[in-house]
């Protein structure tokens, strides 16, 4: 296992796209949250009635422990960035034909996919570390007095990791099946940004309650909108609490879907000709 990890690291450590991705994630995750924090502060520091109202309704979404939830929610929009890297890492193996060479050199088919699984785990881990750092930073910045509540709502760390891993696994699966980087990226972006959103809107409009089972919605529904979303009246409160109550179920569904994806990768790779 350690040898697989070492080998994958040898492949990644000098891959420029990996460091670019890391750099961009380091900028965007804190960046997007910073923008929302800025907007929030502009609203709530106003001296008029709207300012006080905003403060009352929104609370302080970036202070501990809410920061774990809020930063996870906003950061999760940017899973696209590591997804591009994950797709490149598998399609590179096809275009360099190293998916054959690794086997020729002595890996089993199983070891090859395990190595890739490790890549996706490592990237999810790196992204999660950036998320944790951003959450702590904004938590301290937004309200240092609340620091003593940092241990509350820590469940958002594993949930964020799971969501990232699940969605990157879908990206990997596409790259694995399609083999061509640009086609896989195109399908991923088109489905992630367009198709699923239209499907969700349509199904909600038709009142068909299956949206939470769609491939990305399954894990998106683990990180529901930040708590202030429930402060806009009675219906919003009920909706927020219902969504929160579903989180454990969504987590289980996400684990099931992700496991199925990886089982399919192992099984397919074990049988096929590597051409």
């Amino acid at each position, binding site marked *: 296992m350690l040898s697989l990890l070492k*080998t994958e690291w040898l492949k990644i450590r000098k891959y420029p796209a990996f460091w670019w991705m890391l750099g961009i994630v380091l900028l965007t995750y804190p960046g997007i949250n910073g923008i929302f924090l800025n907007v929030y502060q502009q609203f709530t520091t106003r001296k008029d009635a709207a300012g006080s109202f905003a403060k009352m309704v929104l609370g302080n979404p970036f202070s501990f422990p809410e920061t774990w939830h809020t930063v996870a929610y906003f950061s999760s929009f940017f899973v696209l960035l590591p997804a591009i890297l994950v797709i490149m890492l598998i399609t590179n193996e096809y275009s360099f*034909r190293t998916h054959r060479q690794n086997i*020729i*050199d002595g890996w089993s088919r199983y070891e090859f996919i395990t190595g890739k699984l490790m890549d996706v785990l490592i990237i999810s881990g790196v992204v999660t570390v950036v998320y944790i750092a951003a959450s702590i930073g904004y938590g301290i910045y937004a309200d240092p007095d609340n620091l003593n509540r940092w241990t509350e709502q820590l469940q958002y760390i594993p949930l964020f990791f799971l969501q990232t891993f699940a969605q990157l696994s879908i990206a990997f699966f596409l790259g694995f099946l399609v083999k061509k980087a640009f086609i896989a990226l195109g399908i991923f972006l088109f489905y992630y940004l367009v198709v699923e959103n239209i499907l969700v809107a349509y199904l909600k409009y038709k009142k068909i309650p299956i949206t939470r089972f769609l491939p990305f919605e399954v894990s998106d529904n683990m990180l529901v909108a930040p708590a202030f979303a429930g402060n806009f009246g009675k219906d919003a409160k009920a909706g927020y609490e219902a969504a929160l109550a579903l989180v454990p179920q969504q987590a289980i569904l996400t684990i099931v879907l992700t496991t199925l994806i990886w089982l399919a990768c192992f099984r397919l790779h074990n049988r096929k000709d*590597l051409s």
Partner: protein
Amino acid sequence: MDTVLSLEAISKSYGRIQALKEVSFTVPRGSVFGILGPNGSGKTTLMSIVLDVLKANTGSYSWFGKANHPSERKKIGSLLETPNFYHYLSATDNLNITSAISGRGTPEDISRVLELVKLSERKNSRFSTYSLGMKQRLAIAAALLGNPEILLLDEPTNGLDPVGIMEIRDLIRSLAQKGITIIIASHLLDEVEKVCTHVAILKKGNLLTAGHVNEVLAHEDIVELAAANMEALKQCIADMGGFSVLREEDQRLQIHYPAGTANMEAINAHCFRNGITLQLLLNKKRSLESKFFELTND
């Protein structure tokens, strides 16, 4: 002599195209085993199967007497078709990966093989900046990493210049002398003939023949004769008998005798007694090339 690789009725088809039909043979330890065949005869398919890159439809193979297992593959230095490396990594970094996967070679050994294939000066350049010949050299270096007991080389001289081809041939010879088993596929017969101890000839997925070079080639003795009067010579030889084939081509008479039965002295004496003075009397060792064409031509 023990067996390194044995194939049992390997068949492989791509859709309706049958690439290999029940191919069986064994590769003895210490041999230089040439797999020959025209383009599309199934050489690369065969090598891909024994390296587990392709799955055979039926049949089986074993390395060192054990059924397919990755740990056996790690002992084999292989070059299959094109050189496959990470384009953004240098020669050294790529060989580090080969070494990490196969367990063959140390950092010193990586320097040694790069020196051997004359890539030392460019060892820190990215693979994507290499010429075709340099890529091929790196692939050979990867195969040689850690002094494997078995080398499996598919068209190892692809993309090399004449000097490079000669160097690789010499390298293969010196490795063979050290007792390393080398399995080599090539359509360059000249190449193979100079180094091989054993051959297998494939055509359209069928194994035509396999065995020791001398056995495969020496089914017959071939004698070439020429005289001023070719008609009289032909008649004279026909009277003498004992041959299997007699034909005239390019002002020469070519006579095939069963292996070991051509007697040059007797032929010369017989012709002279019959008033024919020979201009040419040649005991021709059969070339791999002529055997190859005979077997693979329809």
